């Protein structure tokens, strides 16, 4: 675990977007390893609806970056077959909710294949899924589906929150001999950071959380689209006299218990923040394991700030649903500070 500032401090030329960093990760992986194949809906000529596969078909040909028929189970199912033959497919699902048709292939084959063949048949494939809300998408375009993948033994579940991690983690996902569900926070696609495409960041090993902002009063545990919210909340909290630590999980599976527990043991208080619906969402697991490990260090129960337990709302109402700075600060205020004084 390393402690990094929120913005990566690369010796960068000009700022790049997360979408560009992801594109570059795909490109570099394809250039290095001919086994890497990108496939999905509109990933070829169009370069993907978020342009993450822009230019790949041109550079590597249609056989390496393939526009498939419109059928997600077919895409993932054929990718499984390709992985069986030693390729490293990188599948793009166009939006979170449109990955659901491939759920059976994911749960019953992708996640289980290595195990059910006694290790003989690994599944080195990556499933890229743009997820979450905040971009004004119509219904079915803003689901936070990470809880489904976390509850499926055999998958790694990874999500970047910074431009640098977008590159580093996607490279690691593609290089992994295990299947990785790679969740891309839609509303951070256009987030920018100084990042030099000519000296791309190192591959970031999967499974390590990072402290994005050190602090002493309480820990905000978060990932993906909610990292910027938490960093902003931490800044705002200074006015209230709270010095908040912010942990970016980066990898939901495997989970970095050490980094998280070390932080919470030190601060004694924690809030988990995510967009996904609270009930049955990732926050329950996270709060429970933190509590198991830090019980006698806790001044207050681990609280959760999450989306409401409702289907994702229409664009004009989404800002009421999404955890914002105020809601995070409210939760911090409820961490039983009286007890201390």
């Amino acid at each position: 675990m390393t402690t990094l500032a929120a913005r990566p401090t690369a010796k960068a030329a000009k700022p790049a977007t997360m979408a560009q960093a992801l594109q570059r990760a795909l490109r570099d992986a394809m250039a290095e390893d001919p086994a890497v194949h990108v496939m999905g809906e509109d990933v070829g000529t169009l370069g993907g609806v978020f342009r993450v596969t822009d230019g790949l078909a041109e550079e590597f040909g249609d056989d390496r970056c393939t526009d498939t028929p419109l059928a997600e189970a077919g895409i993932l199912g054929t990718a499984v077959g390709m992985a069986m033959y030693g390729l490293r497919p990188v599948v793009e699902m166009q939006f979170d909710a449109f990955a659901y048709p491939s759920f059976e292939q994911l749960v019953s084959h992708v996640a289980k294949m290595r195990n059910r063949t006694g290790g003989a048949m690994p599944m080195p494939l990556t499933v890229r899924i743009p997820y979450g809300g905040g971009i004004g998408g119509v219904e079915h375009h803003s689901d936070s589906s990470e809880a489904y993948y976390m509850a499926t033994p055999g998958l790694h579940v990874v999500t970047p929150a910074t431009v640098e991690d977008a590159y580093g983690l996607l490279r690691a996902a593609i290089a992994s001999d295990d299947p990785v569900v790679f969740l891309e926070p839609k509303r951070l696609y256009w987030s920018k950071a100084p990042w030099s495409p000519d000296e791309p960041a190192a591959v970031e090993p999967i499974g390590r959380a990072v402290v994005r902002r050190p602090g002493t009063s309480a820990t905000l545990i978060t990932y993906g689209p909610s990292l910027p919210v938490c960093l902003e909340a931490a800044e705002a909290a200074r006015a209230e006299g709270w010095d908040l630590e912010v942990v970016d999980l980066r990898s939901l599976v495997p989970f970095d218990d050490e980094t998280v527990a070390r932080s919470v043991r030190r601060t004694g208080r924690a809030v988990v923040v995510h967009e996904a619906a609270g009930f049955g969402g990732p926050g329950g697991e996270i709060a429970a394991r933190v509590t198991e490990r830090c019980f006698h260090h806790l001044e207050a129960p681990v609280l959760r700030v999450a989306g409401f337990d409702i289907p994702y709302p229409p664009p004009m109402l989404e800002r009421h649903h999404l955890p914002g700075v105020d809601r995070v600060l409210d939760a911090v205020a409820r961490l039983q500070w009286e007890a201390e004084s």
Partner: protein
Amino acid sequence: MRGRRFNTQATALTRQGRLAVYPSSAGQEACQVAAAAVLSERDWLFPSYRDSLAVVARGVDPVEALTLLRGDRHTGYDPYRHRVAPLSTPLATQLPHAVGLARAARLKGDDVVALALVGDGGTSEGDFHEAMNFAAVWQAPVVFLVQNNGFAISVPLSKQSAAPTLAHKAVGYGMPGRLVDGNDAAAVHTVLAEAVDRARGGGGPTLVEAVTYRIDAHTNADDATRYREDDEVAAWRAYDPVDLLEGALRGRGLLDDDEAARVAREAEDMAARLRERMNEDPVLDPMDLFGQVFAERTRQLDEQARGLRAELDAVAEAAGAPEQEDAR
């Protein structure tokens, strides 16, 4: 003509930011209008996300048909009022719904036909296959209309299917398949009417493929020059379904200049009214987020609603503003 104006007006509204996104059916108006026209009042229409024009042609208020795309609510209309299912965003998922509804109606002894719309891309989904098969096995009174506009976003039909035509898919289910010029409104209407009649008479489902073209980009957010040639678009523009219909009507003496001018005026009026109404800011209550998840709100949702209420009250108090807030 009104259909065309609906499309251009809606696209214009996206430019003014009044619609978040609009998947235009420009070029596909013959299919859109015929799909609505062929149904009787008690029948049901199952549209996909591109078919808001068909929904309007069926009688749904245009503003209500567009709320999904404006972003103030999901389905803006009551599906039971005009017997129109919600616009379906997950592709092909509406097809089994149509089959189930058609079967239910028949089991109840009601004279109802369901017409379901899907794109060429949507035929690749497993749900298409399962819906077709259930419909055929149950001999359900349902008609499937594939609007083959040549593309699924950027993906051309040649990467979507190797079948001679999409209508050939009917063979594998044991149902009739029909191929029709999707830009010829009269032809589409005739073929659909036949299929609807067959369904109504107990003859089971039909698959109709209408060959047409999407003149606009996939949505206003799409850049179609990335994947298709201007020439191709131009050729299809020249084979315009609205012009075709006008020509045919004039040819048969059913339309003259006066009448055409009247229709054009009506279309302008409709567009103006639509523009005006869409420019009103919808009044939304954030508390509605919790009201329709379940028949009865759970205690957990009560609690969350109280939390949001308190937040809104605090904001309102701070601002000295009224509690009901407008949406943008």
